[in-house]
């Protein structure tokens, strides 16, 4: 027997899990994008709102969740699992954990696809899923983290390549963000209330929302870029040192920028300024990363002519650069005053989503799947055709939404020479936007045609597959990796995953801690308004229906301190108005008008008519019909418990009020229904619509002290006919 030890050993990379995640990416991508196309059609013509389960308010979170967490998420996991094994020269630590991760994630997506159309939502953007699913997400994420860090511990390569740093940051940051933002108190299996209220909920939500973009859609994909672009170009990354600066700058800066989603709102001014300042600073690392990726192709640009993978990667990086230039610009308060709540934001996120994430995922799949199937791609020409369909689709989509966003932003702000709003009613502005809504659907349709070409191309490629099995490689035998990687502290850090992860955690957590704690703790951030009272039990129920129907996806509740907004809607919003709002419902988009001051503006019959047939009161409205709320029984069995939870949050309900909440709700419902019956409307005392009307009539009343005495009241109709929309 020889004493000589071999220098290498044979191992098998787990490619099955990469294939599974790749297939899931394609399937969910198609579903998520078709949902997006359907939403675009609904805005082109409200008749596409065929059923309440696919009406805009309920379908929109399904689209965003499917595209972000299912399409991009699965693509990210495929890329991370493929590259991590190869960069560390070891098989994934546990096949079982990989499978739990895969099937757990798919189960979460399926549960989202079921619960969201049914109206089970927390309403928090990109975090809509209810608490049991939130817990499942946290558990599956922990499984992913254990599998990843365990694999790091079993590695054969001392140095952690920069792609792995981005993966580490993503895993840690998403865990922190998800857990903090999802803190909620359940009242039933599929209903909970955010633990935070008003401006605090807004700040936490957009700290999460912004950083979901950062650490789910950006940092993991930057990690993939640092691995797959060099692979595709067969060139090392342009500057490894620039990649280190890129990483730390991005991780330090990104987490602070969340408040730029709440500019000109009731959020304290210091937090808004902080968000703007860090957003501007973000431009530097973002473009540093883009330049590093693009220059990796130095000396290989000619490959772009023939290689569809590189075409997708280069276009993706270009879109990343464009989106990360546009983002800081939109974070300037003056620009934001025009762009916020408009489709300009939608253009921005789709340049990032379709261009950066979508195109990178396609490039990744075109590079990955033929290798995993041990064959060649069926048709490069078809892949190139996919590229052009996608690129033209994005161009049409983004251009249409830019035009749409700027148009509506300017229309909202337009005054005549007498100082009155040129477009006094919302209805007058809708027709101007319709052509661009149609163009958006065309652009999205072209993008999906490209996706279908890819699916066909992969099907033909799969038919020519070789032996589909794990990759077998010769790797160096394991050695002791405990010695430092180098003399400098950073070189040591690069070979020490635990310490590296701790540094990253500090960097990621710091921004959140320094922004969130002062906003939570300092009383002066939320001045008390004596007239602000908690919601009545029926209004609480109505608020839950408002949340379930996804009204927040089209209607904001945040009147900004601009003349055109106070003229159109009423008093601007104050921080103290939202102290009982669990969750906050400020919204991020105005497809319809702001509703903060809608309480008392119209009578109950107007709301009844508007909900049953929006076109009866606003002839050009895009709103779906909510006639089903006039048939859906009003369930007051949980009202007492809901009032109790709000009392626990600090709402000054007495014990008696909590115990009699459902009775009080029914009494208020009777009052509203009796009034409507007198005007000729059907009796709605026992259906959900009465609660929604109660909530809408309460909105903003406390914040403006009372109904403004100078505004002429809306006359009640003598018959049950629809009311015309009055200019405010």
């Amino acid at each position, binding site marked *: 027997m020889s004493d000589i030890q071999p220098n290498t050993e044979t191992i098998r990379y787990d490619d099955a899990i990469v294939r599974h995640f790749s297939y899931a990416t394609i399937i969910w991508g198609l579903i998520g994008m078709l949902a997006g196309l359907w939403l675009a059609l609904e805005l082109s013509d409200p008749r596409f709102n065929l059923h309440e389960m696919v009406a805009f308010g309920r379908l929109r979170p399904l689209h965003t969740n499917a595209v972000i967490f299912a399409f991009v998420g699965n693509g990210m996991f495929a890329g991370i699992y493929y590259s991590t094994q190869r960069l560390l020269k070891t098989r994934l630590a546990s096949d079982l954990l990989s499978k739990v991760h895969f099937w757990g994630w798919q189960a979460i997506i399926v549960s989202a696809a079921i619960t969201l159309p049914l109206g089970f939502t927390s309403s928090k953007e990109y975090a809509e899923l209810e608490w049991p699913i939130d817990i499942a997400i946290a558990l599956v994420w922990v499984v992913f983290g254990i599998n990843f860090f365990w694999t790091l511990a079993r590695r054969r390569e001392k140095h952690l390549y920069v792609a792995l740093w981005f993966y580490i940051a993503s895993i840690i940051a998403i865990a922190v963000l998800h857990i903090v933002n999802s803190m909620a108190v359940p009242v039933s299996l599929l209903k909970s209330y955010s633990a935070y209220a008003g401006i605090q909920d807004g700040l936490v939500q957009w700290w999460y929302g912004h950083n979901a973009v950062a650490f789910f859609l950006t940092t993991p994909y930057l990690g993939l870029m640092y691995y797959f672009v060099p692979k595709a170009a067969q060139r*090392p990354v342009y500057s490894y040192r620039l990649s280190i600066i890129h990483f730390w700058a991005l991780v330090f800066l990104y987490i602070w920028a969340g408040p730029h989603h709440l500019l000109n709102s009731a959020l304290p001014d210091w937090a808004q300024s902080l968000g703007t300042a860090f957003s501007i600073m973000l431009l530097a690392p973002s473009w540093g990363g883009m330049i590093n990726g693009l220059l990796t192709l130095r000396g290989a640009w000619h490959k772009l002519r023939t290689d569809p993978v590189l075409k997708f990667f280069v276009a993706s990086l270009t879109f990343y650069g464009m989106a990360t230039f546009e983002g800081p610009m939109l974070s300037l308060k003056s620009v934001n005053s025009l762009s916020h709540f408009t489709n300009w934001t939608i253009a921005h996120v789709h340049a990032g989503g379709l261009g950066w994430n979508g195109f990178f995922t396609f490039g990744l799949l075109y590079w990955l799947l033929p290798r995993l199937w041990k064959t060649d791609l069926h048709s490069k020409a078809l892949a190139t055709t996919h590229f052009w369909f996608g690129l033209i689709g994005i161009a049409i989509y983004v251009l249409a939404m830019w035009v749409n966003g700027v148009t509506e932003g300017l229309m909202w702000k337009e005054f005549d020479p007498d100082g009155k709003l040129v477009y006094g009613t919302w209805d007058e502005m809708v027709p101007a936007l319709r052509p661009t809504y149609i163009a958006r659907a065309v652009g999205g349709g072209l993008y999906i045609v490209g996706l279908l070409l890819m699916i066909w191309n992969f099907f033909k490629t799969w038919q020519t597959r070789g032996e589909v099995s794990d990759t077998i490689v010769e790797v160096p035998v394991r050695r002791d990796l405990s010695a430092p990687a*180098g003399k*400098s502290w950073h070189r040591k850090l690069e070979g020490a995953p635990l310490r590296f992860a701790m540094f990253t955690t500090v960097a990621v957590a710091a921004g959140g801690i*320094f922004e969130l704690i002062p906003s939570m*703790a*300092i009383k002066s951030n939320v001045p008390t308004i004596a007239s602000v009272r908690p919601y009545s039990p029926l209004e609480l129920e109505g608020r839950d229906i408002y949340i379930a129907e996804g009204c927040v996806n089209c209607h904001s509740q945040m009147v900004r301190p601009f003349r055109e907004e106070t003229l159109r809607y009423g008093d601007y919003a104050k921080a103290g108005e939202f102290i009982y709002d669990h969750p906050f419902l400020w919204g991020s988009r105005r497809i319809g008008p702001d509703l903060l001051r809608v309480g008392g503006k119209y009578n109950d019959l107007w709301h009844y008519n508007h909900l049953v047939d929006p076109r009866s009161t606003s002839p050009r409205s895009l709103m779906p019909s909510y006639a089903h709320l006039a048939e859906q029984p009003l369930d007051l069995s949980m009202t007492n418990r809901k009032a109790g939870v709000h009392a626990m949050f600090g709402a000054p309900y007495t014990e008696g009020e909590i115990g009699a909440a459902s009775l009080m709700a029914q009494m208020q419902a009777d009052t509203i229904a009796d009034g409507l019956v007198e005007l000729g409307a059907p009796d709605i005392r026992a259906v959900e619509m009465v609660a929604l009307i109660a909530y809408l009539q309460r909105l903003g009343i406390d914040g403006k002290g009372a109904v403004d005495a100078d505004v002429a009241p809306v006359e009640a109709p003598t018959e049950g006919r629809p009311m015309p929309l009055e200019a405010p």
Partner: protein
Amino acid sequence: MKSDVLSFSEFAYLAEISLVIFMAVFLGAIVWMFRPGAKQAYTACAQLPLDD
């Protein structure tokens, strides 16, 4: 008691301190990366994706 202390505390200085610390760490990392002799090590690191 705890919430009263928190609510009347002035936390603004925390952001300033953190900014100074982060800036120092960030600049320190840049200095280390561009120190003489670092290029060779990082050139080897950059080859890792092409090496698997």
